[in-house]
């Protein structure tokens, strides 16, 4: 369970997040919907303890963001979009093992877990090859395996499909569904409407650092009296008349 309370983040002369609050529950995919620069990535970075909030607080599975950052990081797995950041000169297994070790897993558990993930994500063919020559989809799987090697209870996805082709996108979407089935808490940021409609149980719409709507998709459509999420979105962020 994630509880976010009045979170704020100010960079030098710019307030990226202006006091947002929301909750996310187990087995539920919460969509963070917003335009580029709305504050989605900043919010996720704060939840991952990479950035310190200027004000406000959040609890992740009962751990306080500010007081117990290392315990919070043990609870979360995070998957980034854009370039997949993995080490080219290491093999897929070494990449995953590195993160497992940094997440305090026991040696004996690590190999077992990697084999398990390799089976699950269908990576057996190339698990011991160096990553440099992998296709985008293969790299995506390595980065997924890396994100969940320590079996986190919370998954954060930051525009995970941006720049991906259809196959790689499918891999990510399937993975999100699996996480939901496993009862994880999932926050998923995106600016793609169709993706949000397809995957999310609930949507938080952010505009310029503030939450402008929060609810299930049917709730939002009913509330704004429009059965098209995109139009609801456009109305909220002020793009349409």
């Amino acid at each position, binding site marked *: 369970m994630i509880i976010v309370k009045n979170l704020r983040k100010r960079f030098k002369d710019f307030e990226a997040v202006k006091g947002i609050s929301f909750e996310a529950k187990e087995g539920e995919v919460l969509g963070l919907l917003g335009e580029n620069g709305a504050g989605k990535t900043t919010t996720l*970075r704060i939840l991952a*303890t990479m950035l310190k909030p200027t004000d406000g607080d959040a609890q992740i599975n009962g751990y306080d963001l500010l007081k117990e950052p290392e315990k919070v990081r043990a609870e979360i797995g995070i998957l980034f979009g854009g370039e997949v950041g993995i080490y080219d000169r290491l093999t897929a297994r*070494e990449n995953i093992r590195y993160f497992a070790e940094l997440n305090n897993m026991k040696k004996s558990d690590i190999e077992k877990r990697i084999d398990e993930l390799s089976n699950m994500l269908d990576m057996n063919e190339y698990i011991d090859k160096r990553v440099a020559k992998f296709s985008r989809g293969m790299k995506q799987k390595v980065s997924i395996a890396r994100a969940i090697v320590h079996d986190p209870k919370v998954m954060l996805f930051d525009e995970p499909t941006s720049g991906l082709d259809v196959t790689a996108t499918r891999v990510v979407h399937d993975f999100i569904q699996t996480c939901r089935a496993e009862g994880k808490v999932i926050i998923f940021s995106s600016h793609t409407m169709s993706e949000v409609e397809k995957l999310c149980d609930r949507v938080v719409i952010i505009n310029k650092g503030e939450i402008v709507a929060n609810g299930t998709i049917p709730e939002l459509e009913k509330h704004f009296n429009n059965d098209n999420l995109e139009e609801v979105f456009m109305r909220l962020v002020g793009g349409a008349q």
Partner: protein
Amino acid sequence: MKHVLIVFKKELIDMFRDKKTIISSILIPILIFPIMYGFMGFSQKRITKDVEEKGIAVAIESENKDASIVKFLESKEDLKITDVTDPDEAVKKGTVQAIIFIDKDFDEILKTNKPVPITIQYDDTNQTSMMAAQTIRQYISEFSSSVVTQRLTAKGIDTSILIPIDIQEKRTAPKGDDGIGMMIFAMIMPLMLAIYSATSVLPAATDNGAGEKERGTLEPLLTTQANRLSLLMGKYLAITVAGVIGTLASMIGLFIAQKSNPELLGKGMAIPITSILIIALASICLSLIFAAIELAISVYARSFKEAQTYLSPVTILVMIPAFAVYMMDPKNIADVYFHIPLVNIICIIKELIVGIYNPLHIAISFMWAIVYIAISIFFAKFMFDRESVIFRV
């Protein structure tokens, strides 16, 4: 601590799987000195050999070819007397190495006991020409002494009157060593150690900071349970090791160069093992300092390219103190130098090479080194903790 080791191990594996790193930090340093000095030795030998085999082409400009000095010079086998039409042009083109202008009344003036002018014209931008002038000067002074002897004998005076003091030289360089080699080494070694300590950590520092940012691997790393200090220290140690290996490789290169070109770098010397250990420790200190500074700068940079731009001045920064004390006599270094950053470590290395073991100097320098290392690590940590640095994209 566990995380520090994990990061350290991973970074070393990553580094040594990169052919670029192997080439730039091991292969090139080992090869550069032997190749450089090999070429220098080769061209030096060629000039000497040229002179030995072909002799020195010299023109004598005098209207009186029967003068005693002309006969004397002609009798010298290694001088090949050549006739030229345009003396200036001949020297410029190198058809003759030097021209000797001799007065036609040479012998007459000589008899009056007045100094006779002789002019040697040579090209002082050309090494062979300079060598020729040197040889001619020697022959002329040989001729002068014979004239002096004749004059003194004619007056019934013993020529030993000209040598009031007979100098006997006794060299202090340890037996089997040669002083010049030691001097050259005392100049080159500290310079090289300082520059290599700064440059050997460069590729690794660039890769571990800006490189990690550019590839997008830094953010996932920050979401692991390892805290930032552990990540930083693991990287820092790995970079330092890369630096030490690079420095070691360059020293091996210098050693090979010296063995194969003793005429340029001296025959070498026996430095006691304790001194070698202290020198090694001193250069490890340099690597530790530069690794931290360069990692901090590299983390700040947005990309590889930017990191390289920011880091090249650091290399120049180390060259200033290194060259400032390059010519300094290792036997007379004032105490104050051992309080100046970088300069002190370079001076310690200088002293040890020539066999000076000054515990006070060593203690002062290493105490300062620990202070610089602490400051530079603190700086790196400060940078690594700043959101505006880590997420500067």
